[in-house]
């Protein structure tokens, strides 16, 4: 008896250790991947952002240093672009949410009795993904251009001033961002609303809540995880986007976002430290905003 008890005792003690070793083994590829493709580039990016130009060197020649002033220069030079990026991204996120919520609600809740309609609408939401992001944005550029049908008819109806443009304005950039990120907002919302327990909505009505009250007191809080993931999936890439705001697409000289600035510093003026420090700033600001947002919306489980 004692022997048996002893044996099971040691087996129990060993079990967790063996398990953790297996877990480690399973995690190893992931850890290696992260080291190679996340940690190494991140360290290299931080080092680049602190580099100083080589004295009497060519344009684009830099040496390792600890020039933290790069950040000060980046913020003072491009503060406006940083603010504009987050402003545009915020607006695009709000518009995408306002557009996607009713859509996702319809597909996920109202269309439940017609599964075929649900699937068809989902395909319609996803279908634009099959065409390149660049092509779609270019298509919008020509649709919204001054020669396009929309602008010319608005001008003919005197709803737009004869010398006004739509492409090249902030509105066009926000429109492009909204359009391009709508599927990223709709899909998580749909995934959440599809599981919405309509009996709770019925209970709200039974307890004297008007449909609007039930929506804000029951449906929205219950779909919070979907809203949070949709907002993150839209806001983060939108803040760093440089396609929509580029003058070659929907933007103009006055609509440059942080992504466009990083691009021009990196590829045009070869100012690698400035581009790197701007990237780090973008990353840090997004990180802080995301953490604050998730904490405020009470969905810490996502972290």
């Amino acid at each position: 008896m004692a022997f048996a008890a002893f044996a099971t005792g040691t087996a129990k003690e060993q079990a967790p250790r063996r398990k953790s070793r297996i877990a480690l083994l399973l995690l190893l590829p992931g850890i290696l991947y992260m080291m190679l493709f996340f940690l190494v580039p991140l360290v290299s990016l931080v080092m680049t952002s602190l580099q100083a130009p080589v004295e009497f060197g060519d344009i684009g020649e830099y040496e390792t240093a600890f020039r933290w002033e790069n950040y000060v220069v980046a913020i003072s030079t491009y503060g406006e672009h940083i603010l504009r990026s987050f402003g545009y991204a915020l607006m695009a996120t709000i518009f995408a949410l306002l557009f996607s919520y009713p859509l996702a609600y319809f597909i996920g809740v109202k269309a439940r009795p017609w599964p075929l309609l649900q699937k068809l609408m989902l395909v319609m939401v996803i279908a634009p993904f099959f065409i390149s992001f660049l092509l779609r944005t270019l298509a919008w550029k020509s649709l919204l251009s001054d020669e396009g049908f929309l602008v010319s008819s608005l001008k003919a109806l005197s709803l737009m001033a004869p010398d006004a443009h739509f492409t090249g304005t902030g509105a066009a950039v926000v429109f492009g961002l909204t359009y391009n990120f709508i599927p990223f907002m709709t899909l998580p919302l749909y995934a959440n609303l599809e599981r919405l327990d309509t009996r709770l909505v019925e209970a709200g009505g039974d307890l004297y809540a008007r449909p609007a009250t039930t929506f804000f007191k029951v449906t929205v809080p219950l779909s919070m995880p979907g809203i949070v993931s949709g907002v993150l999936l839209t806001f983060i890439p939108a803040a760093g986007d440089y396609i929509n705001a580029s003058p070659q697409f929907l933007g103009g000289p006055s609509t440059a976002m942080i992504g466009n600035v990083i691009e021009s510093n990196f590829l045009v003026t070869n100012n690698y430290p400035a581009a790197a420090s701007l990237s780090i700033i973008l990353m840090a600001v997004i990180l802080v905003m995301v953490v604050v947002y998730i904490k405020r919306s009470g969905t810490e489980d996502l972290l």
Partner: protein
Amino acid sequence: MATGSFATSGADLELVGIQKRFPGFTAIEHLDLVIPAGSFFALLGPSGCGKTTTLRLVAGLEDPTRGSILIGGEDVTHRKPFQRPVNTVFQSYALFPHMTVLENVAFGLRRRKMAKPLELAQEALELVELEHLASRKPTQLSGGQQQRVALARAVVNRPALLLLDEPLGALDLKLRRQMQLELKSIQEEVGLTFLHVTHDQEEAMTMADTVAVMNKGRIEQLGAPEDLYELPHTAFVANFLGQSNLFTGPVLEATSHAIAVEVAGTRVLVPKARARKHSGEVTVGIRPEKLRLLTEAPPTTAGVNTLGPGTVTDVSFSGVSTQYQVDVPGADSVTVFAQNLDFGPVVTPGTEVWVSWKVDHGFGLEDSASEEAKFAPELDTATIAVQAKRDLAAELEVS
């Protein structure tokens, strides 16, 4: 809107010619029902007979295909749920998972702008003995606790009409008794109207003023619990509400106050006032506890029916009483409940016995027992299992 106020009395409920069809299925055939204000009305019936559907129609969560619903004399057929003076304790509880227990209970009060919603909610939680769990989320509660929160959330609103869909199903016997008393006292205190759905016939009989037995989307019979039990009108009610011994035979003779039916070669008398049908093939019944078991042939006495001799086939002792199964040739197996006035069973299997009962205790049905055996395909598994068992037993007897 100014501060709301509670209903000062119950409202009566009237269902007129209600029919409810789902795509491809008729859940309620035709329902006419009047529930007077301030009464405790129980709806009893097997699974899937349309009880929840009836409540949902009254609450406004489902639209009737035909017919109208009146609450307190007002036609509410086309009103939205939030406009009806009705609250429901849902069979699935439907507690809001993102709110604390206290906020769940205060939800209806806040919507109606009642003064001091949290205090009233706290009181309601005390009523169901959950005041110590007020700050928890519903997912952190046991099934029975969730059910009591659902009860508190509806009761706290003191609606003119309260709909309860198996509100005590998940509670243990002691708690269930206690909640039954609480419910009854709330109902009597304000004179609210309760429409209570239950599977538990004992609960229905002890709590309700009126019990309705529902079957396949129709109300089979409706009345005071004692009347329903002592004088069932159909074979379904006779067997759903307690147990019955049913015998079918031709009417031999009908006098001014009784009919005589031939059962197993014997004349069985039933008072005319207690029989629904007075000619042709008639099914008569008697409750098992009204039967007396005799070991000798009794002398023929006026006012007493006797069947026998038969053989005791099964004896099962259950403490308070003993159930005997007696095989009487020509009649089905007869069940007798005898109180254990003495120690243990009085007879053993194989004994030859007679059963007798007072003529006044018998009842005559309007349909026959065999009709009841025809099951609709959409009956619940328990009924199907019982039916299968009966079929099997019948087959074994034949071979």
